[in-house]
């Protein structure tokens, strides 16, 4: 991270300077001394739960000779039973996994993994004599933009390291890449081997796990705790995450009349239950299961928390009429490929 250090340093100094100079900040928060105390408090309370994760995979070179690839991530204990969350690793290709804490290695098994959210759950076989764990609070509310965020990472081969930044955004897609739910964006630069690190708020509570870095903006995405708890629950039960698929393509448009956003149905997979139910392209989404659906973030979050096989009640607006449709959330494995979607003819 050497060639990035000066830029990162400037960014942090600017944040500190702005924070110190802001009259609002100084009124609401006593000052930098408290920020420093919070960083120290978060680090002291949780650093012993952060571990380095090493994954060895046996492969073959081009000459057919055996070769071992050793990859390194960060991770953290989430239970007193020795379960560790970290970055994704393919269980079938992984030869051996272990964690390192205080220079000692402990073998682990992979309980399950999810490539889409870049998450793996490990079970340490022989537990350390003492270790802390970080609790997953299932009903953890999302943070507000501008809140302080803290991370404890295990970069390269260094010991656990504190970092801090701000909560800077909530997105459920990155350009054309769609996420299964809304990720939280932090202004915390994340480097090699730091994926799988825990992030906290100023109350010392877990707000998510680092899943990717955004190098162009010195930021990172974390999977929020609420979604993380659901992922962990599914991995424990099914050894994977079961996604449900609505065979509908949505689009978000500005509503200039109400000065807000709204979500429209863009296309529906031909022959799918959703099409047979009567939904049509250009229907305006009003709610999903009586929950707000005014943005793609809300739509994806609502779909993610449902179980495949459930029905979701779509309330839509069509020609000034409000209509309701119960749409099946199809299991991902049964889903027809969305490349066959039938677009709205007027859009083409």
């Amino acid at each position, binding site marked *: 991270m050497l060639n990035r250090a000066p830029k990162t340093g400037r960014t942090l100094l600017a944040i500190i300077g702005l924070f110190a100079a802001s009259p609002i900040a100084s009124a609401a928060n006593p000052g930098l001394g408290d920020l420093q105390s919070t960083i120290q408090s978060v680090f002291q309370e949780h650093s012993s739960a952060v571990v380095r994760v090493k994954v060895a995979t046996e492969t073959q070179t081009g000459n057919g000779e055996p070769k071992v690839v050793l990859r390194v991530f960060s991770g953290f204990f989430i239970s007193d039973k020795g379960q560790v969350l970290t970055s994704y690793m393919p269980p079938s290709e992984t030869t051996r996994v272990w964690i390192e804490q205080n220079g000692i290695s402990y*073998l682990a098994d992979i309980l399950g993994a999810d490539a889409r959210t*870049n998450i793996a759950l490990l079970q340490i076989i022989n537990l350390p004599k003492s270790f802390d764990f970080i609790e997953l609070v299932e009903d953890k509310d999302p943070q507000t933009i501008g809140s302080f965020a803290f991370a404890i990472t295990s970069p*390269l081969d*260094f010991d656990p390291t504190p970092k801090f930044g701000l909560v800077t955004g909530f997105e459920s897609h990155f350009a*054309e890449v769609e996420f299964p739910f809304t990720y939280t964006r932090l202004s915390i630069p*994340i*480097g*090699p*081997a730091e994926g799988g690190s825990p992030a906290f708020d100023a109350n010392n509570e877990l707000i998510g796990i680092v899943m990717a870095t955004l190098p162009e903006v010195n930021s990172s995405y974390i999977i929020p705790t609420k979604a993380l708890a659901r992922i962990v629950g599914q991995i424990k039960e099914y050894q994977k995450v079961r996604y449900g698929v609505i065979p509908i393509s949505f689009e978000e448009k500005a509503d200039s009349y109400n000065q807000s956003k709204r979500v429209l149905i863009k296309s529906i997979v031909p022959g799918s239950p959703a099409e047979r139910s009567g939904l049509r392209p250009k229907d305006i989404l009003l709610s999903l299961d009586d929950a707000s659906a005014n943005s793609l973030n809300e739509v994806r979050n609502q779909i993610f928390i449902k179980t495949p096989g459930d029905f979701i009640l779509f309330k839509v607006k069509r020609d000034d009429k409000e209509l309701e449709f119960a749409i099946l959330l199809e299991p991902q494995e049964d889903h027809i490929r969305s490349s066959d979607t039938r677009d709205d003819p007027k859009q083409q």
Partner: protein
Amino acid sequence: MPSQKPTPEAEERLSQLLRMKRQERPDADFWNKFDEELRSKQLSALVRTQSWYERLGKTSLAIARRSTTATATVSVFALGIFAVSKSEYFANNDLEATQPSVAATNEAVALNATNAAPLFVVEEHFVAALEPEEPVFIQSFDVQPLYEIHTLTQRASSSNYSINAAPKQFTVGGQANGTSLGAQVIRTGNQF
């Protein structure tokens, strides 16, 4: 009812029968069996049979009464051993004292591998279960680690943003080969 006087012939037959009966004597087996039955009847009349739980209870009581001193001594010893085994000093020495073969195995692994090789802390039975299957893997663990991070970047595509399907890999020794998918390559040098 008129009385009938027995005839002399009838009296003679009766006296012969009585004479025969007087001469009858039981054999020795009969008398043995008779004695046994008589003894058992006398005992059952004198002694009431106890149920099994009554007998168990009385036996336990008797043992407890007779071994009070011994039981107290053993309890004190057991408590002492338990307290010492749970002490910090004893716990620290426990692994070394009871698992010398594991420590030796781990040292061997550490010496044969690079600095990044793990020093496994495992129980003896676990080593026994794993080592026969994968001894070669541990011995040939001489590889450079790849420090990975998943990256979302626009540099991967000339037309639009995209996500890297495979995580970006960083090595200790210098710049990774291949085209950059967007994440900056970290030059860490050979030592850190």
